[in-house]
């Protein structure tokens, strides 16, 4: 199978600090997850792959071409960056269509495509609202809309599920999986193994700037079961949620924070499934944000790199 991204002895230095260290890899067509804790080099790799940074040494090619200073290649790429940054005064529709115009679409087609992209991420109702008034989850979705709107061959997503509520998260995972089916490719980064697992079995593991594993997620998955998974849930009624969580034996511990509950679970699959149905029912109030600190993932990495 042809590689959509190929890195050959790729390194990136920020002065004295190394961001990525001699990475050689090939990303096959389809959906590939890039997994690593915060500060592992994921974002540096993403920036190199999207041509925002130039390699210090080595090479990186995307869809068979070098990406650094090759703007024409962006016609075939869609990028959803990690940072929560927007033209806050623009509406979602104006913003997505303005970016589409930079891809060469005329005004009418840009508007039409922007509408459909916003529909795809379930933002049609809010398309004429200013982005500054969007919730965190809506902002993530409008970012996704601008990435898919021009129908790229390769979609590069940097932490696309961060801060989304469970329902939006489920929709986004479905969208990413579907994108990978239609002959297109997706490279998606996350520091949450469970997220990546729900999208693809094909992963790249990065830690401390090095590629430490690539291939099937299930082998990694077995390792993580030895370590509890932490989930931070911001909700209207965290205590009622906590009561519901304790009804099952997949929860190891609970901790309360301001308007939030932090859960440690031994079985993330069943816990997330339960969380999604609780959120969908709405019986225990709104769940605003679900995030996962990467302490537990760090433990898995430490285990993997242990001599």
């Amino acid at each position, binding site marked *: 199978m042809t590689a959509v991204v190929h890195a050959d002895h790729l390194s990136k230095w920020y002065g004295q600090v190394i961001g990525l260290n001699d990475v050689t890899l090939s990303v096959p067509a389809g959906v590939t997850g890039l997994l690593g804790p915060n500060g592992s080099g994921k974002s540096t790799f993403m920036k190199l792959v999207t041509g925002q940074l130039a390699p210090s040494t080595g090479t990186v090619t995307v869809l068979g071409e070098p990406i650094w200073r090759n703007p*024409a290649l962006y016609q075939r790429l869609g990028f959803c*960056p990690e940072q929560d940054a927007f033209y806050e005064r623009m509406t979602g529709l104006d913003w997505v269509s303005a970016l589409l115009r*930079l891809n060469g679409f005329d005004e009418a087609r840009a508007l039409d495509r922007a509408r459909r992209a916003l529909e795809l991420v379930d933002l049609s109702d809010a398309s004429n609202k200013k982005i500054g008034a969007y919730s965190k989850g809506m902002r993530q979705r409008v970012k996704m809309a601008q990435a898919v709107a021009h129908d790229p061959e390769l979609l590069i997503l940097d932490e696309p599920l961060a801060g989304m509520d469970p329902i939006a998260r489920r929709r986004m995972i479905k969208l990413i999986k579907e994108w990978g089916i239609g002959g297109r490719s997706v490279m998606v980064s996350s520091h949450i193994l469970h997220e990546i697992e729900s999208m693809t079995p094909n992963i790249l593991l990065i830690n401390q700037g090095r590629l430490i594993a690539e291939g099937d997620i299930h082998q990694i998955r077995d390792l993580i079961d030895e370590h509890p998974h932490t989930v931070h849930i911001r909700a209207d009624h965290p205590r009622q949620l906590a009561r519901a969580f304790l009804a099952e034996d997949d929860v190891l511990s609970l901790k309360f924070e301001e308007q939030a509950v932090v859960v440690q679970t031994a079985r993330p699959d069943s816990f997330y499934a339960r969380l999604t149905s609780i959120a969908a029912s709405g019986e225990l109030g709104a769940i605003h944000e679900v995030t996962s600190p990467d302490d537990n993932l760090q433990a898995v990495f430490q285990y993997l790199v242990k001599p």
Partner: protein
Amino acid sequence: MIEQAQVGLPTPMASTLRIVDLSLGQMLWSRRSVFLGLLVGGPVVLALAIRVLTTPELTSGIRVTGVQVDGASLFGVMIWLLYIRFVVPVLGIFYGTALIADEVDDKTITYLFTRPIPRDAVLMGKYLAYLICTTLLVLPSVVLVYFFVIPVNGGHIGEAFPSLVVDLGVIAVGLAAYGSVFALIGARLRRPLVVGLVFAFGWEPAVLLFPGYLKRLTVGYYLQGLVPHTMPQDSTLSAWMQMFTDTPTLAASLGSLVLLTLGSLWLAGRVVDRREYVLEQ
């Protein structure tokens, strides 16, 4: 899923114009524009005050060293001292240095640099948006000052109109030249605002005071060659300065400013094209 569409790459010109389209609204309705709008309102307030205070009922007119100054001369002084030496550089500094820096600070640069358009088209588009935005800010201010000041001491608005057109042209050239220099400074240096302020209000006035070739490394020197008004000699210092003033010819000034503008923009485009922008998370 959105169906695939065959669309050609936008030309550099089309890319530039689309960046203008995207940036102009952001630039016009920014806090910076509100602040600088107040700044360009200053000369209008001053002109209004002059107009009110020079009505025949209050005074017999404005005199400099005993000589009565007419409205057209006063307007010329205001154009040179307030607009060309102050407002234009300030606009150039605050907008020019921020053309790319704002997008980097707001972390929105990623959206522009991951589109199939050359990076220098992004800079060029933002530069053109700056020119439109600053022209829209300055134009009403200059016109209002003109209408308030020209009738002082019996001047005729219609007679002085060609001078207004020339002055507006000089201001536009000044905005273009300063904007391009500060765009280069903004693209190249880490603290462009400080460097810009030092250049416009430290280096330029200091070098223009003394004879020699250094003044050719300023924008003000060439703008001086475009100003149609005769500067009033109202003090010993200005008379002394006038002795050393070598004003370039109109053609030399215009040619130098065009070269300076195009050269600065080309260099700024090169810098932006090759620079890595590391956004802090």
